[in-house]
């Protein structure tokens, strides 16, 4: 029996005992909220303070979550026993159904099961991956790297125009050869195809990796492993807008939802490569301003309050410029200077000059 399985059984037996004793069945769930999450200056990432909320079965406003959590625990136990993994979405679908004889759906929305899985991670002290539950699969990678995965040896430099498709779980990958100076990680697959078409990874001896939008857990773990195990700096290439800066922020310092896993997911020496306000000045990108919406402006103010940005001149400058411009600039705007400008001028220059933010 794995440790995770044992933890789940412990949880189940505690509840069972309460029922036998005629008590209202309960579970203790660590609270994740702005109040219990703080930035740890030493660790340089978000951490979760232990604070417990009791969740009861016989309580109208708890019952739904209570049953959902037990359901997720049962599912996880099954997965572990079978030696299989499953997806967040699978878990949702496994639980999505109408309780027989009622018009109550056990789960309405994936966000509910996602939340229960996080609760279970916290209650059992085990990683989601140890509970055999994976998140989304997304993203591609190329570079002078050879890995071994499930018995296959895969050369990331010989995968044609497509690259290696990053799985949702990268815990079991073995790096055979890592011949690269750093990783450029970007939020857009179209930029990745641009760089790949231009053979940037070859010219600059680096790895290029992309996701679709937000960074998946698999990618975060892959980046962290490349960084921790092979000392590769991670350079982040996103839009000059609050959402791009937020991607960088989560990658480096963690997020509220996963604050309890910061240590395992954060890439503590990720660098922000671009787009910066200075890029906009230097490369004359102002004509490609796209006006920000009110909610974007609000988002900037939230970022300005993040403890790792607050009081840091270099970041406040970026974000305040964004507010001043009231506009965003997308990575692709560099294409207006020429289609391969990003590959041939922008990246080489910036990297050579170590012109990034930290």
């Amino acid at each position, binding site marked *: 029996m794995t440790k995770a399985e044992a933890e789940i059984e412990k949880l189940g037996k505690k509840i069972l005992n309460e*029922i*036998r004793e005629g008590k209202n069945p309960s579970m203790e769930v660590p609270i994740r909220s702005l109040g219990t999450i703080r930035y740890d200056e030493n660790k340089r990432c978000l951490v979760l303070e232990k604070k417990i909320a*009791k969740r009861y*079965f016989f*309580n109208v*406003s*708890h*019952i739904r979550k209570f049953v959902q959590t037990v359901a997720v625990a*049962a599912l996880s136990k099954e997965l572990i026993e079978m030696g299989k993994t499953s997806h967040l979405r699978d878990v949702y679908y496994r639980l999505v159904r109408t*309780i027989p004889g009622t018009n109550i759906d056990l789960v309405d929305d994936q966000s509910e099961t996602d939340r229960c899985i996080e609760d279970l991670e916290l209650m059992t002290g085990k990683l989601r991956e140890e509970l055999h539950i994976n998140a989304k699969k997304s993203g591609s990678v190329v570079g002078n790297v050879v890995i071994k995965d499930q018995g296959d040896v895969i050369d990331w430099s010989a995968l044609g125009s497509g690259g290696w498709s990053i799985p949702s779980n990268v815990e079991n990958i073995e790096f055979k050869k890592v011949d690269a100076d750093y990783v450029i990680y970007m939020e857009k697959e179209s930029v990745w195809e641009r760089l790949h078409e231009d053979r940037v990874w070859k010219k600059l001896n680096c790895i290029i990796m992309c996701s679709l939008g937000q960074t998946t857990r698999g990618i975060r773990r892959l980046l962290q492993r490349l960084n921790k195990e092979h000392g590769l700096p991670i350079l982040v290439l996103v839009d000059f807008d609050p959402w791009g800066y937020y991607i960088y922020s989560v990658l480096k310092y963690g997020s509220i939802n996963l604050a309890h896993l910061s240590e395992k997911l954060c890439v503590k020496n990720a660098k922000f490569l671009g787009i910066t306000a200075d890029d906009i000045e230097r490369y004359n990108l102002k004509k490609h301003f796209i006006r920000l919406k009110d909610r974007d402006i609000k988002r900037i103010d939230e970022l300005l309050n993040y403890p790792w940005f607050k009081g840091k001149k270099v970041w406040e400058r970026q974000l305040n410029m964004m507010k001043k411009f009231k506009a965003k600039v997308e990575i692709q705007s560099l294409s207006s200077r020429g289609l391969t400008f990003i590959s041939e001028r922008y990246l080489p220059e910036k990297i050579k000059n170590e012109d990034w933010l930290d």
Partner: protein
Amino acid sequence: MTRRVAEELAKKQREISVAEFFEKNRHLLGFDNPTKALLTVVKEAVDNSLDACEEAGILPDILVSIKDLGEDRFRVVVQDNGPGIVKEQIPKIFGKLLYGSKFGVGKQSRGQQGIGISAAVLYAQLTTGKPAVIYSRTSPDRPVRLFHLRIDTGKNEPVIVKEEETDRFVREHGIRIELELLGKYVRRRQSVDEYVKETAVVNPHARLKYRAPDGKEFVFERTADQLPVRPKPIKPHPYGVELGVLERMARFTSARSVSSFLTGEFCRVGKGAAEEICRLAGIKPSSKPQELDHDQLTRLWKSMQKVKLMKPPLNCLSPIGEDLLIKGIKKEFGPEFVVAVSRPPSVYRGNPFQIECAMGYGGDIKTEEAVIMRFANKVPLLYQASACAMTKAIQKINWSSYGISQQSGMPTGPLVIAVHMASVWIPYTSESKEAIANYPEIIKEIKLAVQECARKVGAYIRGKKRLMEKAMRKSLFEKYIPELAEFLSLITGEDKNKIKSGLENYLRGVESDEGGSGDRKTGEENSE
């Protein structure tokens, strides 16, 4: 030149009879259109009958019959068991406008100014040319008097077309009036049907029999066997009198001194108060009231407003009473919950008045919007709801605080609201008596009465909601129990049914012990 014009104009000047005036201005009296005219005629006759019966201490038993004669003509018959009218008075009461017994006598009654029934006669005559037919009998041992009456509108005087004794009218005493008029019969709200029904609600001591033009017959039996307390007439209260009226009273009084004038012709003025008024006004109590000049009267009037006096006596009012209101609502609407409030009497411009409210909720009431019934001195008000102080007051209330939602100001849901104003003098917005004028004192009292009822209905609704919630909670737990049992069994290997019965046991325990923790929010989990 101008002189000649002035003289010519002078020749054209003439006195206008009040009948002539109202003939041209019939809408002022509620004869705006054929539908309303039919209702108004019935209403004036029934109001008079109810007043007369109550005045005579007789439990009213009234027949209303409307016959459709075709071509928009209707014959309206109203017959009561009242005291009847002596033959000398019949022509003037039915054939002269502004002739009556109730004007300014300081007593609560349905009719007020001696216009209503003669206006009905006038309207009938105007639209069909037919005279009014009146039967009257004042006692079983007296003959029945029959009159055919017209109104000479130029002079505002009755014309007797026919007068005779008859035996066709069978009741022991009472009045029967027959009018033929152009009208229109409808069944919806603001109809005769509605008027009769609402009248029954607030006059549970009356028996009403109603034959509708379509032949249907409705009988509203008595639910109360006692007559309402007879209202007493009162003298004017000094706070409500106007300077002009005071001057007139002083000029025509038979009192020898200001002091006896004040104590004799006003209510709530004792000797002490009268002297206090005189002192404040700098007038000798022994001066003759007829000789006071304008300045002295002005001072006297101002002093009358300043002196502290008791409120006017309130036995001039005859409210319906909470019990009878509840009975009325129950009988006609079959609600599951009903409540009524009679406010203590209050005063506006020296006129005592009293507000009552009854509210029925749920049961047979299935409306989506609340049904509002307005009554003034036990008479239903069917028109001009939006102009009425009662509607205004209801709209000003924040109904959501009683768990009742509001749409364009009006409360919604299966709700019947009856508001009644009893007063010596109802301040209608027009002579057609359709809406009560918006005096702040009146609106305030209406609000208080309605709010008190609403509070109780609200409490009832909340209680009902609580019960429903409790039941829902239990059923919710029951629905989730098999789920938890199944998942927990998967984790622990324990038998599913054992877990289930353990949980069911807990639920039964909680149910019988409401103090248990299970039924409430026990934890402090953050809600997201």
